[in-house]
């Protein structure tokens, strides 16, 4: 070994660097002022007249003849199933809170919270069948829960130990997709394949109101319509695409987009787990029957920040959040469970204990999550191998080996 090689020391200490946080961009500090535009009125008008709701914010069942077809999809729901939906929402919220805390403690580099969107996700997620296939964006922690994905699997990419990390085929739950709206096309292609196979399963693609502006989402709508693909587009309109409100995304209520592509669109109260379940069952059912795609706009609200790098106080008012807090998805189901005598104090107490156990497990698993082996850089770049990757792996190995003596000191 040469003198220079033996004397070399690592210039950076490997592994000591904490997972970096994504810094928020320096803003102008100017508070966005609410504009009074006709477009907002148009969007709200759609919301007022078309919103499918089966459970009011006060926890009362809605008997609405106009939405009887959707209601029929949950007509025979049992108290046990209702308690199950409640449990799903509570545990998902607890998991989400734990992940947010872990980000604040420096254990995760970033977190995209689903706070406020539990009903949209649990309702739609529980509507899927085992052989259905789900294409999420990066906030579908509740849907992942419904698909049986271990929630700690979702944290790897946010901790920075992988870029996905689970086998999508284990639970028919595809990897999180960061580029907005890309997965709408993947879901459509997958659904085209389902139809070719003659299978009767459905596919569901999740995306947000911001993604509705992306070309890929419009292209997915068109391909799905043209090929009559069994895909349900589930748009969670949480009102804000980072700092941009619906006004900056669309001139028409989002669910109405479907009409222009030739399939039905429906706006559901995304804070109503029953309505979300019913409408998604309806859409998946018709997709399975070969009646083609549908668009569901789950009208909901992101209670927290876009991600932990975001600062919503720069662009939205506290009174807006307060108004949506009154529509909380978990609280309204609890009110219903209590008024209908479907759940007693023991149930809620047990669930509280279960939540704490989940939080503890998540905390422990994340903290014990090892950094990946450094050679993981070169793994799975190609399925069939690639000469350049082989060459660079060998160079990397030789370079790492050159530190052996220094590390032994």
């Amino acid at each position, binding site marked *: 070994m040469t003198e220079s090689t033996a004397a070399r020391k690592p210039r950076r200490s490997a592994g000591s660097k904490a997972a970096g946080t994504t810094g928020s961009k320096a803003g102008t500090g100017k508070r966005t002022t609410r504009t009074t535009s006709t477009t907002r009125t148009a969007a709200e008008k759609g919301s007022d007249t078309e919103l499918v709701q089966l459970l009011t914010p006060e926890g009362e069942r809605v008997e609405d003849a106009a939405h009887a077809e959707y209601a029929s999809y949950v007509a025979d729901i049992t108290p046990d199933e209702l308690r199950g939906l409640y449990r799903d929402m509570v545990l998902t919220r607890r998991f989400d809170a734990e992940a947010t805390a872990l980000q604040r403690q420096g254990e995760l580099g970033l977190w995209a919270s689903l706070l406020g969107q539990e009903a949209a996700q649990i309702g739609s997620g529980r509507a899927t069948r085992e052989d259905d296939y789900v294409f999420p964006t990066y906030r579908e922690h509740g849907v992942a829960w419904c698909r049986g994905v271990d929630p700690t699997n979702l944290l790897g990419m946010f901790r920075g130990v992988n*870029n996905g990390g689970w086998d999508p085929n284990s639970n028919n739950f595809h*990897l999180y997709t960061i580029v907005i709206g890309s997965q709408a096309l993947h879901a459509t292609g997958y659904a085209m394949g389902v139809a070719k196979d003659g299978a009767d399963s459905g596919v569901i693609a999740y995306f947000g109101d911001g993604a509705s502006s992306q070309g890929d989402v419009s292209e997915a709508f068109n391909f799905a319509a043209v090929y009559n693909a069994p895909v349900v587009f589930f748009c969670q309109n949480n009102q804000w695409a980072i700092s941009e409100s619906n006004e900056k995304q669309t001139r028409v209520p989002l669910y109405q987009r479907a009409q222009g592509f030739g399939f039905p669109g429906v706006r559901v109260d995304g804070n109503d787990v029953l309505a979300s379940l019913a409408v998604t069952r309806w859409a998946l059912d018709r997709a399975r029957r070969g009646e083609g795609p549908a668009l569901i706009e789950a009208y909901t609200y992101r209670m927290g920040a876009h991600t932990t790098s975001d600062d919503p106080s720069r662009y939205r008012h506290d009174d807006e959040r307060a108004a949506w807090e009154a529509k909380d998805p978990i609280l309204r189901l609890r009110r219903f469970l209590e008024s209908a005598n479907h759940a007693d104090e023991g149930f809620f107490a047990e669930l509280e204990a279960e939540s704490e156990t989940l939080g503890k497990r998540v905390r422990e698993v994340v903290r014990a999550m090892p950094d990946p082996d450094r050679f993981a850089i070169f793994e799975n770049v190609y399925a069939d191998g*690639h*000469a350049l990757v082989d060459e660079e792996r060998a160079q990397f190995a030789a370079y790492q080996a050159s530190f052996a003596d220094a590390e032994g000191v």
Partner: protein
Amino acid sequence: MAAEKMALAKAINESLRRALESDPKVLIMGEDVGKLGGVFRVTDGLHKDFGEDRVIDTPLAESGIVGTAIGLALRGYRPVVEIQFDGFVFPAYDQIVTQLAKMHARSLGKVKMPVVIRIPYGGGIGAVEHHSESPEALFAHVAGLKVVSPSNAADAYWMMQQAIQSDDPVIYFEPKRRYWDKAEVDKEAIPGPLHTARVVREGTDLTLAAYGPMVKLCQEVADAAAEEGRSLEVVDLRSISPVDFDTIQASVEKTRRLIVVHEAPVFLGSGAEIAARITERCFYHLEAPVLRVGGYHAPYPPARLEEEYLPDLDRVLDAVDRSLAY
């Protein structure tokens, strides 16, 4: 008696036919690939024989074509996608680079992406804007993609078979100005590895390395140089990612001189990478710097100027003179 003389476009057609016949999971997708048989007729007759369920005319949306092909691959299909012309691939570039190329790594190897993207590329046919470009370096730069370009009908046939069988996404650049060039295709042959370069002409004085449409030109250059008493070796790279540097190195260690020829702009093109690596590998063997002949750092020009833009016999011979003058 398996060999048959056919045009390069026909060889791809026959190769696609063979793939459709042998694997029910193979699909052809793209704009006008059905009844029309593609604007270059590369998919001619396939729609008639395999039906619209296998040979799929798509909406005019390149991102949609590649994005749905990804979904079909996730479902177990092996889509072969046609992008109508080189310059039209860019609406799909996001899906190719951020999704197709990364899915295998993102899934820690659980998901495979056996998607072939066929792109007729390059100039020399007098086309309008966006119909004559050579964007191969933009794809070769992206980890997760493989990039190949055949130069003759036999390679076109076999490289397509291999690309479809690959579990990795392969960008298959078709030299459109060579579509009508004929060569013997042996459908019973056992092909060499997809990513191996080949010495197509032996020589001792200088190596010309090229791929796709420029291989034929380099062979013509070698013919012309031979008349002047110079012995040029021609290497057909065949694969642009990965590059078979061993074959180029062996050639350069023999001839001690290298010129890389491609239609794409020289600046940051694949020739730059080859020049750098061969300089590293063969520094003490080289008698002259590695030279490059290619397009200029300018938009592909209108048709009446493309002969000025594209490498031709004289430009390559001029580079040969410069190299030999060292």
